């Protein structure tokens, strides 16, 4: 039987579908149209039937549903078994999964059981219409280059994609069909049990939702200088971001890291200070609306994607911008 259809795994927590699912449905819709095939959402959980309508609105033609009390909390074994069972019966051509902690936990197991290829953290997906192959692009291992990866013969072709890499599509009224299957796994068969959980308290770093990000890189030179980045962020109401070396040097916690191994962001404004613009950083922020780059090396690749560029010493320029912004914003406040 021919593999057919593009599938998107539906991630949900606390009664809500994760936005990455809708982003993947948006991209999945394009891929399915190019392949002239259908787009399906794969929905597993306990009492999740009602999500189906939302999934149709975001582009799904079909929802494969397994609704079972064993699926109440996400656990690798029953979720992976459920998807494998569906995939073996309905043979999709492509399965897309969000590259979240949950999605990564799941994807590696599903791909192994299906004996197929899996490409992590894709930043671009497209169909070659002549070969019908999925072109999966991600930063290449250990180089400042991107690689396009193919899974030529094994099916399905599987990829994970981080949240915010693809835009959220516009929901539209639309109808679809629900195909329901049984899980067929008893609680006793599941090798893990969640005994308890603790919600992490305290304000998190909501980089992925920030409208303004001021990010610092190795060019700041020290933890003390990194304060300059934080000061500008404070004044203009932004969130602090960082490149990997700034995180590794201990100037700022990992939660602030932008890039392939950190967060993917899409703010209105991204100010990159002392960041060279390596691909692993660019893939995390290139979708920002306006990018400002401050770097003393005029040939730094960050200038290739910047809207406004400033060549000079970040240690002199940052305080000047902070000062100017403070002055202008104070003036605005006075006028109001």
């Amino acid at each position, binding site marked *: 039987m021919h593999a057919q259809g593009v599938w998107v795994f539906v991630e949900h927590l606390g009664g809500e579908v994760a936005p990455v699912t809708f982003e993947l449905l948006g991209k999945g819709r394009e891929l399915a149209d190019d392949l002239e095939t259908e787009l399906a959402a794969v929905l597993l959980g306990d009492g999740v039937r009602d999500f189906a309508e939302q999934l149709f609105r975001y582009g799904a033609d079909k929802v494969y549903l397994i609704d079972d009390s064993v699926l109440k909390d996400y656990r690798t074994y029953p979720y992976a078994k459920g998807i494998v069972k569906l995939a073996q019966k309905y043979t999709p051509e492509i399965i897309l999964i969000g590259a979240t902690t949950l999605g990564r*936990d799941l994807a590696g197991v599903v791909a192994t059981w299906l004996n197929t290829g899996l490409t992590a953290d894709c930043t671009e997906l497209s169909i070659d219409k002549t070969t019908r192959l999925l072109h999966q692009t991600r930063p290449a291992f250990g180089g400042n*280059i991107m690689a396009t990866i193919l899974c030529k013969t094994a099916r399905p072709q599987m990829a994970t994609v981080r949240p915010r890499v693809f835009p959220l599509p516009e929901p539209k009224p639309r109808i679809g069909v629900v195909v329901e299957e049984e899980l067929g796994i008893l609680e006793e068969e599941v090798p893990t049990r969640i005994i308890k959980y603790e919600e992490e308290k305290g304000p998190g770093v909501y980089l992925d939702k920030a409208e303004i990000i001021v990010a610092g890189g190795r060019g700041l030179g020290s933890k003390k200088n990194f304060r300059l980045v934080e000061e500008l962020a404070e004044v203009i109401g932004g969130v602090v971001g960082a490149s990997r070396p700034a995180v590794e040097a201990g100037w700022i916690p990992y939660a602030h890291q932008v890039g392939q191994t950190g967060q993917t962001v899409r703010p209105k404004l991204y100010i990159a200070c002392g960041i060279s613009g390596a691909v692993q950083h660019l893939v995390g922020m290139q979708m920002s609306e306006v990018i400002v780059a401050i770097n003393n090396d005029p040939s730094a690749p960050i200038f290739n994607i910047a809207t406004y560029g400033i060549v000079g010493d970040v240690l002199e320029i940052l305080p000047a911008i902070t000062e100017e912004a403070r002055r202008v914003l104070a003036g605005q406040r006075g006028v109001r």
Partner: protein
Amino acid sequence: MHAVVLLKQVPDTAEVRIDPKTNTLIREGVPSIINPYDAHALEEALRLKDKYGGKVTVVSMGPPQAAEALKKAISYGADRAILLTDRKFAGSDTLATSYVLAKAIEKIVSQEPVDLVFAGKQAIDGDTAQVGPGVAARLNMALITYIERVEEFNPDEGYVVAVRKIEGRKEYVRAKLPALLTALKGINEIRYATMPDMIRAARYQPEVWGKEQLDVEEAFLGLKGSPTQVWKSFVPQAKARAKVEMLTGSPEEVAKALVEKLVPLTLIANK
């Protein structure tokens, strides 16, 4: 308690520099290290050994040089080290890698029972985070990813409890033994090697297993056994945006020019 720890040798990216002309990593002279996540996984395994007694076996697949990473692990206190190396293993993607690692663990289990397998969450050279779950899937072991610590190990009743850290919450997960755990970075402080262990490591030669020593089928090895292939690689092109506008002048002048541009776009907000 017998734990197997999967260790990958990786280039120390903290030392990596980009060649400004070719835009690629300069690999020459870059030292190799134990993948940092795996070093924390090893530490977690050694702590269990300190507490419950037993043994830690470290396993790495890679070129002959990966023996160095294994010897380093011995110096920290691992008991046995196995290097999986063979020309036929070269070019493995994550599916082919998890195949060889799983086969090696099966062989170890046939020699002496294994309670726990530890891996890192991900290897810093590729960042796929696929190999740990893949090995667990092949061996049908319970899987707990992203662990922060092992809370309880109870071989008599056949379970382990680990704390896993995911987006916005911590989960206490109880898993049947044998289980595979993948460790986060920075979860524990890695010990210093003791003098006797350093001496032992200097003399230690890891066991070397190739295709012949494992019950493997050639079709699943290396490039042949890897469903994914790099089709092309390229230097990323700038997104279709208007060419960069450079702002020049003294720091005060560029600051003024920039803020003038950003304010009307309501790009900067008053807090």
